[in-house]
């Protein structure tokens, strides 16, 4: 009977060796180790043996079972590995073929600039407010120290709807509206983005419709140094950490002193180049200390309160930042143009 075991062992080994699939291997397992298989039938024959023979045969039989199991297991692993490799091979695709085109939308570059500025100022405790685009001459000009016939109105040729109603030429009327609406005359800290309109023919640098972002702070003890510090942060946020700003005297009827703000050229670093026309500085916004007449006309005592205001054009900021040369691009909405802004920007 021991011989039978050896023969059987050789037979199983031959079969296993020739097997090429896990499925066939499983069939071998069932055939030989199953209830109706030869090993089981051999063990059932054990009853006819002497105790000594039983002992020896039993041991041999167990050894055979263990050996067969190990044989099957190792073959199984070998086959599984092979089958996995075959599968991976079969499933391999050309990853260089084009992807499925998922349409992802994007933000308009002007909105993108406005969002950046809003987020900065909201983080500093400013409230975002809005005002009407169809505005009264009163708020757009008169309450901003620009009476009728004032020569400074020339630079803001306006679209009038009636003698007293116009499309606002600036976001500054929101200054007057905000001060007026603040009945208790408490401190103010607001930022106001919006559309503005001037009676200019559209060309590469002029647009009859454009945007502004207005900022206004009114409180006790507000100084020009506060304005400068605030705008320094703005310049660094918009144009990079290394930027510096320069205050230049200017004139706006609703601020006194009035200041134009230049940022050190982000293309040449201030050495002078074509972008900054050799000066090292680029004008980015207008600002100043709120004119006492504006404070007074809107109910704030100029002896007690001071304030600063600033206004910038997101179109101009975007043009400078992204090297856009024609302001009309923002309103043409060529999708190829817009899609260029459809991504995160990673610092410098």
């Amino acid at each position, binding site marked *: 009977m021991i011989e039978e075991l050896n023969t059987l062992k050789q037979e199983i080994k031959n079969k296993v060796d020739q097997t090429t699939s896990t499925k066939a291997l499983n069939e071998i397992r069932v055939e030989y180790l199953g209830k109706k298989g030869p090993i089981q039938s051999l063990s059932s024959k054990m009853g006819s043996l002497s105790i000594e023979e039983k002992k020896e045969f039993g041991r041999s039989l167990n050894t055979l079972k263990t050996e067969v199991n190990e044989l099957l297991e190792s073959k199984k692993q070998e086959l599984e590995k092979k089958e996995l490799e075959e599968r991976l091979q079969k499933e391999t695709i050309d990853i260089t073929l084009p992807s499925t085109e998922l349409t992802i939308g994007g933000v*308009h570059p002007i909105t993108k600039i406005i969002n950046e500025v809003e987020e900065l100022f909201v983080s500093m405790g400013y409230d975002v407010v809005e005002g009407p685009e169809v505005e009264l001459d009163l708020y757009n000009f008169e309450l901003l120290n620009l009476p009728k016939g004032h020569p400074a109105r020339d630079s803001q040729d306006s679209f009038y709807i009636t003698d007293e109603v116009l499309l606002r030429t600036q976001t500054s009327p929101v200054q007057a509206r905000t001060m007026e609406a603040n009945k208790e005359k408490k401190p103010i800290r607001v930022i106001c983005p919006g*559309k503005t309109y001037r009676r200019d023919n559209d060309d590469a640098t002029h647009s009859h419709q454009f945007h502004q972002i207005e900022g206004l702070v009114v409180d006790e003890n507000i100084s*020009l140094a506060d304005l400068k510090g605030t705008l320094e942060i703005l310049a660094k946020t918009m144009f990079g950490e290394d930027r510096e700003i320069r205050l230049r005297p200017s004139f706006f009827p609703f601020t006194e*002193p009035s200041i134009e703000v230049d940022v050190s050229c982000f293309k040449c670093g201030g050495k002078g180049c074509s972008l900054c026309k050799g000066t090292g500085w680029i004008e980015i916004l207008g600002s100043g*200390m709120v004119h006492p007449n504006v404070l007074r006309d809107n109910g704030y005592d100029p002896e007690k309160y001071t304030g600063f205001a600033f206004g910038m054009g997101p179109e101009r900021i975007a043009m400078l930042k992204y090297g856009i040369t024609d302001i009309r691009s923002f309103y043409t909405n060529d999708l*190829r143009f817009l899609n260029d802004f459809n991504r995160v920007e990673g610092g410098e």
Partner: protein
Amino acid sequence: MRVSKSFLNDYIKVDDLDFNEVANKMVLAGNEYESVEKISEATGIVVGHVLECEMHPESKKLHICKVDLGNEVVQILCGAPNMRQGIKVPVATVGAKLPNGMEIKKAKLAGMDSNGMCCSLEELGIESKYMSEEDKTGIHVLPDDAPVGADAIHYMGYDDEVIDFELTANRGDLLSILGMAHEIGAIYNRPVTYPENQPKVLKENINDNMTIDVQTENCPIYLGKIVKDVVIKDSPEWMKERLMASGIRSINNVVDISNYVMLEYGQPLHFFDKDRLGDKVIVRMAEENEKLKTLDGQERTLKTSDIVIANEKEAVALAGVMGGLSTEVEMDTKNIFVEAAIFEPIHIRYTAKSILRSEASSRYEKGIDPNRTKEALNRACYLLEKYADGKVYDGILTHDKTSKEDKKIEVTLDKINAVLGMELKKEEVIDVFTRLGFKVKENHAVFHVSVPTRRLDINIKEDLIEEVGRIYGYEHVVGKLPVLETKEGSYSKKELLTKELHHRLQGLGLTEVITYSLVRKEDVNKYTNYQNEDITLLDPLTEDRKYLRKSSIPSLLNVWEYNISRNQKNVAIYESGNIYYKENEEYIEKPMISGLLYGIGTNNLWQQEKIVVDFYYVKGIIENIMKYLGLNNRYSFDTNNLPKEFHPGRSCALLIDREVVGYFGQVHPTDCKKEVYVFELDLLKIMSHKVRMVKYKEVSKYPAIHKDVAFIVEKKITSKEIMDVLKHVGGRMVTNIDVFDVYTGENVGANEKSIAYSITFEDATKTLTDEEVMKVFNKMIDEVESKLNARVRDK
């Protein structure tokens, strides 16, 4: 304002300064400039003497010239018609550079050597408006006494440097060389000298010959003098050069003097032919429709807001804007009446706007120093005496209501430092005021400042603070953040909602666009149900931008068209902006979210997989937004009362709690032949429907059971009608119903369709048995069959 270095140097020493540096220091004091340039940037130009001049034997134009350049005599070929022997001309020598970039080299012209070029003014970079007729067609001929071999550019004064300033509206005082001298004097701490202006006078006194009658308050000062026996001729070269540097064309000595004095003092003058003017000068407001023929020969119809100068017969000049033809100084004029006056800026502004903006009117609009009126008048007479052989009458015809007093303003050191955020000392502040030429007394850190009348822009203490800041220098301000109460910054509810919608729509594949609010008449009432009055511009630039839009959709269609014509196959865009209309005399602005979709949603060309944009795609976007905004189960659709530009069979209104908040669907084929889908939602209406906070409902732990059923119904029955019955009967046990197939065709009747539903049954508290589910499911089917005359397909 163009400022020449040589002109300026008469009143403040600047010839030792780098003019570019002066310009840049002026920028830091608030005076921007456009350019700093020499009148001519040409180099290597010398005075040449044409010794010989012969015509080229083979050319009809070319002259062969021998030109003495001082150190050598060279042969130069010249094609100018006015070339002749004996004249002196500017010669560009070999190696010279012309303003147009040309470099002069030895050349062969028609077989002859040419060693240089005789120059026209154009070649030297001079604009033709400054040229005489001869200069326009030929080379420039220099005076006979020009020194041969000398630098011709320097000889002509064309090396004079000019800063072209772009001044702010408040600095009318800088529209004069003297004003500029004061400003530069403050920056460099240098004194200003005023020009000589005392003519010798005759015994005759103007006041014995003429009378003045000012009948309007709009002329606070009117002064006049008589200069007789003037000789009209060319101005001296230096004056021509300075006028050209200042941007003014030379006419003759008399006209030039009027302009020259205006440039010096900022006080416009007007010269009348005294003999034609008569003996009485009247200043009054024009009569309605009064006629006046102005210098340019045009007959003007005047308004009552125009100020005129008149004699007893008629109006003879539009005050401050333009003289009249009848009293113009002409070549035969002998006697001149010189006017120096100030007129009310607003009136000049309105008149100038409707007639002509001139050098004079722009100065009047910004204000004139009343202390300069008499000075300028005398200066003009002095120059007429000197350069036009005039004889000046004694006395001044005078109407004067102006105050000549300095303005007295007080400001404290504390206030200055508080506003500027600086720590200036008393002495530093006093130094600034002194440099500016303001008298100042200081008492316990209070400055009592006397501001001269030339500084019309300084009236309150904040103006003085600005002067201190800009002259001391804002570069000394150290930036800091304001010390303010700590508080949270905020967005309005509308802005927060807008931001959410931006993000959502971008996530859904739409790109934001921004279009113009102003549209043309044809578009203003499209895609909207607002029948209210349009808002129209009084004075539009073009008919295309005359009306404020009542819907953004026409603008979005323009963007679509633009992109399609540039080979974009797919367009998915949205805009967040206002629409506008007038209601009960009020101007209404409504924030809207609008969008347009066209083409393919998602695409993979080589796998032939794509989702084409159709009604249901847009509906998907709308529903996605509604669910995102927490309005699930509160919105519905309705096909009634659509704006007429929507396709009536493929569009609908969106309602929230039964209120219409917008429309979406396909564009009507008459408006656009392509299958374009659009939507427009009213932001404020959406916002008015309050949404509760999210309240967590535990998800069922027990398995769901799905049942499918297909109904055959008449075509006119909508899916919603079936769905409503299914939901109603199913009750709480039914947690979801999907449509998974819609079929029309052979297997159903011609007027029928089949819709298949997949229904989900779920109970949060127990496992449902098939028996329980079937009981409800069968009842749902029975109800649909009986209520909607449906039958179950393939049952």
